């Protein structure tokens, strides 16, 4: 793979086109290695500007039932941390867009931060976000992330005070992940009014690009968060639901995923 696009380059690229970034999520290995890789390819072929990749975890406290079910399918198909990195190498064979890893901290802790970040870098990842690792506990990882040239990504939520926002923005690189809802991941029919407020509040405390996730399930949600000032939209559960509903028919699954991705990407064009 030639030059790997950085988050900064990617956000600039879409901005230059007058668009926002469309960032779909997948749990690697859901429902199995091959299908999951085809899913990712479908994402890329249908407008993904970057990818959020989840390694499955047995106890995902920040996730709702959709992601947890995907985690279980992936673990049952034999996904491990090492195979996860192999998976990312496979993705790098066909795309150079930014790849972010969304993970629970115990998987990093168990392998050891240095070894984990080294493997992450070698696999071709751009950045890592640990869902249960707030800035209080993340200090020790920043040097490791630096050492391997990886972005350490953090979340900002509605409960996050301005004072914390500034601290988080200082530690964060790549982009800031804005949690749209008070709650866990999962598809929702409505976007909270407070999301718009949060995006502008975060904007006023940070120069980092923002991507909004959690509950972004429809093209109009994507439009709304982008018009509120976000630089990107992360879509997870709504896509995973399509996997779950079409486990018996891979072709239909991929076709539906492809057309939904095109709709979501279209919504990022102003």
């Amino acid at each position: 793979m030639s030059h790997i696009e950085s988050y900064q380059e990617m956000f600039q690229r879409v901005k230059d086109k007058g668009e926002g970034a469309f960032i779909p999520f997948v749990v690697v290995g859901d429902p199995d290695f091959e299908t999951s890789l085809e899913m990712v390819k479908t994402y890329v072929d249908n407008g993904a500007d970057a990818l959020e990749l989840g390694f499955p975890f047995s106890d995902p406290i920040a996730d709702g039932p959709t992601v947890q079910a995907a985690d279980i399918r992936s673990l049952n198909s034999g996904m491990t941390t090492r195979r996860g990195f192999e998976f990312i190498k496979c993705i790098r064979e066909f795309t150079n867009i930014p790849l972010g890893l969304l993970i629970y901290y115990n998987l990093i802790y168990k392998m050891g931060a240095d070894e984990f970040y080294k493997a992450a870098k070698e696999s071709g990842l751009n950045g890592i976000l640990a869902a249960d690792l707030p800035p209080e506990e993340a200090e020790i990882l920043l040097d490791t992330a630096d050492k391997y040239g990886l972005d350490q990504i953090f979340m900002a939520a509605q409960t996050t005070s301005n004072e914390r926002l500034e601290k988080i923005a200082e530690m964060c690189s790549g982009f800031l992940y804005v949690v749209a809802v008070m709650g866990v991941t999962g598809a929702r029919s409505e976007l909270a009014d407070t999301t718009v407020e949060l995006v502008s509040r975060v904007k006023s405390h940070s120069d980092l690009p923002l991507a909004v996730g959690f509950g972004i399930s429809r093209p109009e949600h994507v439009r709304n968060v982008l018009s509120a000032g976000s630089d990107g939209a992360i879509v997870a559960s709504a896509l995973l639901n399509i996997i779950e509903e079409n486990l018996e028919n891979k072709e239909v699954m991929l076709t539906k995923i492809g057309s939904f991705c095109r709709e979501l990407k279209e919504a990022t064009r102003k």
Partner: protein
Amino acid sequence: MISKGKFGKYGGVFVPELLIPALEELETAYLKYKDDEKFNEELDYYLKEFAGRPTALYYAENLSEKLGCKIYLKREDMLHTGAHKINNTLGQGLLAKYMGKTRLIAETGAGQHGIATAVVGALLGIPTEVYMGSEDVQRQKLNVFRMELSDGVVLPVESGSRTLKDAINETMRDWITNVDTTYYLIGSTMGPHPYPTMVKHFQAVIGRETKKQIMEKEDKLPDTIMACVGGGSNSMGIFSAFVEDEEVELIGVEGGGDGINSGHTGATLTIGTEGVLHGSLSYVLQNDDGQINEAHSVSAGLDYPGVGPEHAYLKDTGRASYDAVTDKEALESFKLLSETEGIIPALESAHAIAYAKKYAEKEENKGKTIVINLSGRGDKDMDLVAREMGVEI
């Protein structure tokens, strides 16, 4: 956070960003009220008049004679709702009330912590909802009914293994979603800071009473203190008063299940490794990748793949030691205590009795003065024990 809540390297606040402000609010309130005169007067009143404190430190003469040691039992089994859990739910329930929270949520395995939370919710007039794995709901119908009688709402959890660990996941998700109004009442010395410290504080009454009582009866400290360890609250409660007294040996007894190497065990400190689960760094039962294993113990209270972080610290520093006894040994000791003393222990507490029996058999331990924390009574285990004994009731 005001403090990092670390015990050596263990503990901490490994939670999603959404929860950090709630933990900060909780820490601030806890630090404000833990030494507040009015708060403590009210808590002491309820501990005495509602829960039945102080509990006796009972000299188990028959068992002592049989085992060749001087054995005292700290009778937490005599408390309202049948176990030490009420010490903590009264403390935190009152804290929730002082904080102006309008809803209590809790997780429960067998239902003991759920019941202790539901009755405190009823007492203080705070609506209470308890998450319980759907497997456990089936196995513990009587306790589900007890919670419902106290106006608690039981929410069956269908995700994952449908047991305690998934009930905790689900309670955390609820808290993440409803953090403004809701108080998460964690039942053990686990979870993110400030829970391990706070739950120890509310359970420390066990140790304080024990120390005073043993000095009155023996005019010296005991040689050894034993307690069962699941999440670790009853053990931390009694250990806390003696940690500084280096000459007192502290032993935690885990649920060994079918044996520590059987793959069916709850012996987290005995065979587990360092890991992050449910908000803190401690020992956990996990595979090579860090995926959390399911625990197994005949006793639901010890059936958990994690353990409170301060126990991890006490283990590493050597201040306390930890071992496990099997389901079979615990069941034998359940009968032993019932027969010799007329006291039917909770299966959890029976693990400490079983360890005491093995301990007393060693020549170097003959004649020692041992305090066992009898954390709960066995009423809740009747069905299960009868089944294990092949008796129909």
